[in-house]
């Protein structure tokens, strides 16, 4: 296990190197000179040269790459181009709101999806199963944008059950007032794909020999499903949630943007709109690192839950 972990950590280095090269390439060659972006509408050569010097883009590429690597290693990406806030401060303050929405969202949607998936897997092939599957396909085909627009209009604007937008100071206030509708939308969007996926996990288990054995020795259907099948189908489900986590952190930007939640996702989208490269660079690199670590954790967890799994 230790040897495996060390080997995986060792493999991080080329992948991370690749991410650094990719980000560096994209931002230096595809995008053109950032000095022109920053200099405004009527740039003069002096301003351009000045900005280039400040950003370090007049240095040779090797030096620039080294600056970038140093930024990653020290965690100091400098300041945002548009607000001059430290990038590290931005992340530290935006993580809380993101988690306030994400943690309840994941818990609720996972529990609901697991229950529904188990139910339809149990009655597989029946009319209920087929209806739920088609309903999921339809629900999945409606853009997340429509969910957000309609839910916000209906529940916040028309019915006034929730604030349309906003964010408070205390955690309880945020959790019980501002985050509720965002969580509801998130659950509504993730339910359909989750049910479809988890259903296949349950189907894989339901046909196994141990289920037949459990039934043969006279266990109740409830016990077979809730204890035997659930515990085995739970393994890929847990892994799947873990793997989604880093993507969700940055990927909840639509929800965060519409509900005015000052989280990481909204910061990303603001940065993209303002061409605020330091923030985008930092997010990309850190989320990549988080993804790699979470992948490793998922594999180790898999091994811990299911001793049959061979890590290689």
């Amino acid at each position, binding site marked *: 296990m230790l040897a495996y972990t060390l080997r995986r950590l060792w493999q991080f280095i080329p992948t991370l190197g*690749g991410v650094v090269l*990719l*980000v560096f390439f*994209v931002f230096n060659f595809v995008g053109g000179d950032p000095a022109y972006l920053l200099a405004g509408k009527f740039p003069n050569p002096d301003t351009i040269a000045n900005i280039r010097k400040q950003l370090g883009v007049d240095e040779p590429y090797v030096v620039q790459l080294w600056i970038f690597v140093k930024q990653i290693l020290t965690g100091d990406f400098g300041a945002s181009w548009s607000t001059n806030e430290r990038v590290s401060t931005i992340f530290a303050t935006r993580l809380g709101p993101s988690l306030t929405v994400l943690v309840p969202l994941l818990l609720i949607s996972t529990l609901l999806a697991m229950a529904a998936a188990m139910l339809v897997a149990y009655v597989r092939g029946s009319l209920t199963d087929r209806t739920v599957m088609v309903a999921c396909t339809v629900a999945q085909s409606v*853009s997340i944008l*429509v969910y957000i627009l309609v839910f916000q209009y209906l529940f916040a604007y028309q019915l006034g059950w929730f604030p349309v937008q906003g964010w408070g100071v205390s955690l309880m206030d945020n959790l019980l007032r501002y985050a509720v509708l965002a969580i509801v939308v998130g659950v509504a969007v993730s339910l359909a794909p989750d049910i479809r996926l988890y259903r296949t996990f349950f189907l894989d288990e339901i046909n196994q020999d141990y289920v037949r054995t459990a039934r043969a020795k006279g266990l109740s259907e409830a016990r077979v499903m809730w204890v035997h099948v659930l515990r085995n189908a739970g393994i890929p489900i847990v892994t799947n949630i873990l793997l989604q986590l880093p993507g969700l952190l940055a990927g909840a930007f639509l929800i965060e943007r519409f509900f005015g939640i000052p989280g990481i996702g909204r910061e990303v989208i603001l940065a993209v709109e303002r061409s605020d490269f330091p923030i985008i660079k930092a997010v990309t690199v850190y989320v990549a690192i988080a993804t790699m670590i979470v992948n490793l954790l998922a594999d180790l967890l898999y091994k811990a839950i299911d001793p049959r799994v061979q890590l290689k």
Partner: protein
Amino acid sequence: MKESSVWALAWKRFRRDRLGLGSLVVVVAYVALMLAVAIGWAARDWDREAGVSFAPPTFIGAEAAQAQSVKTLEAAQPVSDYGIADPLGPDLAEIAKGLSGASAGETRAPTLALGADKWGRAVLKKAVKGTETSLFVGLAAAALATFLGTLFGAQAGYRGGKVDDFFNWLYSVLTSIPYLLLVLAVAAVVNQKGVLTVILILGLTGWTGIFRLVRAEYMKHKVREYVLAADAIGASNTRRMYVHILPNVSHVVLVQLSLHVVLFIKSEVILTFLGFGVGVDTVSWGSMLAEAGTELLLGKWWQLTAATVFMALLVTAFSLFTDAMRDALDPRLK
């Protein structure tokens, strides 16, 4: 006895699936609509301001809408000017008269089939034009991603060794960045709107899933007897890869192509909604949804509904078609 080909067998199985067949009809209809728009048979004048601003759908009727617009006009009047006459009042009235006179030249319809947007453009035509944009982007990006994924997957899986290591490295680099974040980062840097840009962004970043599957298939197939036989009769590596093996893994490729069309249509809609997608000179479902947000607050729900229904119908049909195709091509699965 006549032997049926794999494809004939698959088609036979597919035909039995009524849901799949129905969705195929819908998909074909959408593609036909896309071609019709591209040729110029339909929705050529989508940006003509044919109706009055926010003309409601015909089935609701103009009357209700007019009452509503009068109400909003009244609400828009300032409370009172504290008894002072508006110094610009007469001038403004004259300008307004001139404006309405100019637009009265071409009579504007009070209602349109599916209503009109803020500028009086027909929502139906916009949705049809949006179908062309969104479906074309989805198909082209999926074709590009599938091409790259198959090419790289074939090389990596067949050749193994250093080539495999390289593509696996590229794969792990690209997949360690969440997909939408990667797309947004590239969109931010490219900073250039347009259909081609969106296709390139989606296609160049979205091939990883296909690569993984095709690579696994090639690894499985390259040691099979028919490939060894091809080697024995002197077929080159390239010939073995693309003439012998490719037809045998093409069912995987086809299903993935179809899956990615759906994925990319959804991504395009989000990208355009955020303002990084197709430009302002054209219309996609994403730009319709972007307008719909503020329209909804005014109670003009028809553009949102039209874009949603057009998109949901296509995406649902495409997803069901993909499921049916997978079942037909790979009967062992279920």
